[in-house]
């Protein structure tokens, strides 16, 4: 056992400068890989959150009724609101309905109107936040028609239009990130391929000796696979050590911007675990690529 552990690699790949070069290069690739992986996972979480939060709710706008003097008729407006409220509470697929209070409306309007305007004097529509039941199939056309029978001043905003645009944008971002991910994996494979080929050239004498004493290609390929597994694992660890602080910093920055949309782009424990096992993936990937390269190269060489 002791001798097995102390046993040196018969092909001295560990001592080569190319190995150091590949290790540094792979560490950079692994860093990029983990960062992009985190981006992809964050986008996925964000999209799911949007779909859950936004598609699970609709907003009803009810315009106030004005009298002959173009002033808001409070009684009629309230009566109209009660009717809409009753209609929505009884509508199919609706879980709950509540009127958005004046203070919230005021807060929402402040960025546009400032603090000095009394919004009660303005014909601002009243808003109803309608929460839908999970997986409820809503017929929006039917709902709109029913609502118009109650009052022509009410309209439904089901967020779908602008959300679809956002989802498309998020989808493009995800595709871009996935392309970068594939590119990183591809470049990494090329680096391993060329460094393995270079190493085979440098160690041709050792390989020929091994062949002469009866080593099969599999035996030689395993030596390379073992060596590159080490490189892959250490690259993964180094990449991870640098990537985690970067991701934590970006996450904190995203949250501190206060953007509601970005806040939903958090990473779950599962995501963190997935990132933690990237050195294992890196090990298997480097090992497999080196093994395959050696097998194919030896078939062509001798």
């Amino acid at each position, binding site marked *: 056992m002791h001798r097995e552990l102390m046993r040196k690699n*018969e092909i001295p790949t560990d001592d080569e400068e190319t190995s150091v070069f590949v290790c540094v290069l792979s560490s950079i690739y692994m860093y990029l890989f983990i960062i992009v992986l985190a981006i992809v996972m964050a986008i996925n979480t964000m999209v799911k959150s949007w779909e859950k939060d936004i598609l699970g709710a609709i907003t009803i706008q009810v315009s106030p009724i004005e009298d002959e003097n173009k002033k808001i008729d409070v009684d009629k407006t309230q009566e109209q609101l009660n009717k809409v409220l009753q209609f929505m509470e009884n509508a199919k697929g609706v879980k709950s309905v509540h009127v958005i209070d004046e203070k919230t409306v005021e807060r929402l309007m402040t960025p546009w109107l400032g603090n000095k305007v009394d919004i009660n004097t303005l014909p601002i529509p009243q808003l109803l936040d309608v929460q839908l039941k999970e997986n409820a199939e809503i017929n929006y056309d039917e709902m709109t028609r029913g609502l118009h029978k109650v009052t022509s001043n009410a309209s439904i905003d089901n967020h779908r239009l602008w959300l679809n645009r956002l989802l498309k944008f998020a989808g493009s971002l995800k595709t871009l990130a996935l392309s970068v991910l594939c590119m990183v994996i591809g470049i990494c494979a090329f680096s391993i391929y060329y460094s393995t080929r270079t190493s085979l050239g440098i160690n041709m*004498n050792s390989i020929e000796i091994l*062949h002469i*004493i*009866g080593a*099969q290609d599999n035996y030689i390929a395993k030596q390379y696979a073992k060596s590159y597994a080490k490189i892959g694992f250490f690259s993964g660890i180094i990449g991870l050590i640098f990537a985690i602080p970067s991701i934590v910093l970006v996450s904190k920055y995203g949250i501190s911007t206060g953007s509601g949309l970005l806040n939903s782009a958090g990473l779950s424990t599962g995501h963190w675990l997935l990132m933690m096992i990237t050195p294992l993936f890196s090990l298997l990937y480097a090992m497999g690529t080196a093994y395959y390269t050696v097998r194919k190269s030896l078939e062509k060489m*001798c």
Partner: protein
Amino acid sequence: MSDIVTDTRPIIELQNVSVGYDGDEVLKNVSLSLQAGDFTFVTGKSGAGKTTLLSMLYLIKKPYKGILNVFGNNINFSNRDSLALMRQRIGVVFQDFRLLEHLSVYDNIALPLRVRGMNEKEIYKRVVELLRWIEMHKSIYKTCSTLSGGEKQRVAIARAVINRPDILFADEPTGSVDAEIADKLMRLFVELNKVGTTIVIATHNELLTSTYNYQRIDLSGGTAKLYPALQKI
């Protein structure tokens, strides 16, 4: 009547074989055969093709044309893995030793056994036994790059014989050692031959071929001619 059927096929057989480098034929239409247990010298001037012939026989070089049978297998129809398995039954000693210099004496000698997948305990037993025999057990963990020429020669021979090969090839084994070591080496080859190992030695040392009376393949002008051992009167 005996039930035992002995394989009378030659251990090595060449039929109209041509071989060379980069398309140039060094040996042309060579036909010869060696039986198991033969002791054979391969002679010829420098550049006559001794090393080329040997590298083809220890299955590193493929013939351009003709048929080469080793252990009864036509190597033209053997895949890479079966060629490797055949090589495991062959031992080779080189003039320049061709050791893996970064490895220890132990690891170099253990190499053919590891390639065969033998367990480390059995490997250790065999290597230590052989190291005692070549009187190098004190240098077991020395790195080969630190050894003298004579020590390297002994390690190279130990590596070639550790897996008890059926055929042992030696390319100019006495070329870089003094007369005393050369004589010891030859006596070792004779002993191995006595226990059934087929020995093929490439040499241009005429003293050697005249001292040891064995059959001889003489290479000249791209052809090979087999001379039998002289009959004792």
